[in-house]
């Protein structure tokens, strides 16, 4: 592994769910990479495959789901070839995931201090229990939990939902992992608490070179946080690139629709753009481009599934009618 090997490189990842009604291609040829200290935003509407992408990277897909293709290279090692024991050693140690549901991280029958101290000492057994407790208390403080000393002795059910999520985030930050996959962790939290958590995440990436994948449907959060962005629709990445490039010059009609529907400063009192129609079921995707039925620019050319194109360095796009001349913009 050389210094410029990305922390995580995902190539053509495919994860399918083999259900009674057919095969749902929840992740259908997804590729991206995240380098040391880099933050990638992964956005898309619910059901587009964001969480399953995260689960696939960590080897957490359960039947009827299965990773059926691709590579997941973590610091050069293919995670898909590791056995359960190897994966478990990386999780909670070099790689952490923050789930949409904090109870996927927290054990309901253990006190918070027990869980946190265990996490610290699993990573480094030479740390004393007292030292581990001190680190745990600091981590709770970092995510804005008042009176962390008292809270350490509590059980998860004694916290409100928002506080539980903060405890789960504190556990993920505890060992300063090399990669964090955060799945909509702050969607339900207040802006001030969210700001505090984004501050800690940003600091970790800057100070220790942690690579971060932030999954969300909130584009404004990504705008303030990420270095690059991948937009998913129906299991595929439809647009990808440097943050400013994609937000300022969105080329895919779906990306443009998402950006247009965000309320804010310039929309006061105006009608918001609505993407017509609804997310299609993965079992009944239209032939050709999956966005076809909702796309204002669809025509005959969209009857064949568009391939990924790379109009300029660092940009990927899956559309036969890009809405901006990317080569022109870049120059």
């Amino acid at each position, binding site marked *: 592994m050389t210094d410029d090997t990305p922390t995580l490189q995902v190539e053509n990842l495919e994860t399918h769910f083999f259900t009674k009604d057919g095969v749902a291609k929840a992740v259908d040829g997804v590729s991206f990479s995240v380098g040391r200290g880099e933050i990638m935003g992964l956005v898309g509407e619910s059901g587009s495959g964001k969480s399953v992408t995260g689960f696939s990277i960590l080897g957490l897909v359960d039947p009827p789901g299965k990773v059926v293709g691709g590579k997941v290279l973590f610091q050069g090692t293919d995670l898909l070839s590791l056995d359960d024991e190897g994966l478990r050693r990386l999780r909670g140690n070099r790689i952490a995931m923050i789930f949409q549901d904090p109870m996927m991280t927290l054990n309901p029958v253990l006190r918070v201090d027990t869980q946190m101290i265990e996490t610290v000492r699993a990573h480094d057994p030479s740390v004393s229990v007292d030292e581990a407790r001190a680190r745990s208390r600091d981590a709770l403080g970092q995510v804005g939990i008042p009176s962390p000393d008292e809270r350490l002795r509590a059980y998860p059910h004694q916290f409100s939902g928002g506080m539980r999520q903060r405890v789960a985030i504190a556990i993920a930050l505890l060992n300063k992992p090399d990669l964090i996959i955060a799945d909509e962790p702050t969607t339900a939290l207040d802006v001030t608490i969210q700001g505090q958590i984004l501050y800690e995440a940003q600091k970790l990436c800057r100070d220790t070179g942690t690579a971060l994948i932030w999954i969300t449907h909130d*584009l*404004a959060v990504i705008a303030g946080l990420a270095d690059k962005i991948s937009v998913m629709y129906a299991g595929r990445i439809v647009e990808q690139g440097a943050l400013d490039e994609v937000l300022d010059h969105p080329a895919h009609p779906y990306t443009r629709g998402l950006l247009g529907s965000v309320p804010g400063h310039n*929309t006061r009192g105006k009608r918001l753009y609505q993407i017509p129609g609804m997310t299609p079921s993965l079992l009944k995707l239209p032939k050709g481009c999956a966005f076809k039925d909702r796309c204002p620019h669809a025509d005959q050319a969209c009857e064949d599934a568009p391939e990924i194109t790379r109009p300029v360095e660092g940009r990927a796009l899956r559309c036969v009618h890009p809405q901006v001349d990317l080569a022109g913009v870049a120059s």
Partner: protein
Amino acid sequence: MSTILELDGVTKNFVKRLDAAAKLARRLGADVKEEVVHAVDGVSLKIAAGEVVGLVGESGCGKSTLGRMVAGIMEPTAGDIRYKDRIVSAMEKQAGRETALAIQMIFQDPFASLNPRMRVQDIIGEAPILHGVTSRADAADYVAQVMERVGLDPEYRKRYPHQFSGGQRQRIGIARALAVKPEFLVCDEAIAALDVSIQAQVINLFMDLREDLDLTYLFISHDLSVVEHISDRVVIMYLGRIVEIASTEDIFDSANHPYTQALLNEVPRLDVRGFDYQPIAGEIPSPLDPPPGCHFHPRCPHATARCREERPQLREIAPGRVSACHLNDG
């Protein structure tokens, strides 16, 4: 514009039950037997007919409690709620019933608030039949009309809630509220559970309904961008109290109260890139044990000795604009 709703010193206290209190006391290291939460603490507010008032504040500050009292689902511990100049709790039966229908509430979780065993036509049609808004014979047509109004295909009226998407379920909730011909809607995080593209549809629907039906809204949300988009005026709450009320422009362009300013600093915006997020200054207080004086003083960069002792009153600082901060005393 005439005032349609007025809150005068409205307060709601919850007494925590002993077992919960015991746990809390242990957690807080305090030696208390019974805990009182001042969920809403002396709130006064006037809302004009046809207005959209946004209500913003951190989790637990009392927004839902205030909304429930306005909607008549919960009684205030103290203070008066006036609807069209009459005190709601003192109304005789008929007027009380009319007011209860006139003010409807729309909830965050569209699924939990719909009875899973009822068909959509009954969810929407039940209350208007009961209250004589429509007759049983005309109910089918009436329900179809309301469904169309919120963008639901009347073909779906025989379906159950689980057969709809999140956005459609929220429309069912809105249709149920509209079916009794309300004048005033309390929306409590009504779009928080929806995807961005669906959020846009529901926000647009709320704005259309306002135009077409002359509705007044109390719009509760922790999403400041949505509040900025939809509201005429914004009310900011902190730990049970109102700290600032102003027009949407004034709040978002030149907030007066230090808490409002802190809140707005953290709002993510599409046009702000590479933002340096900041940690919260000071401790986040518990609503069980709010700090004395100005509740915000442990987090306020401008706090003085006076702020730790004396509660700042809401004062008019410009026409139509109030704020509760000692800094305004100059």
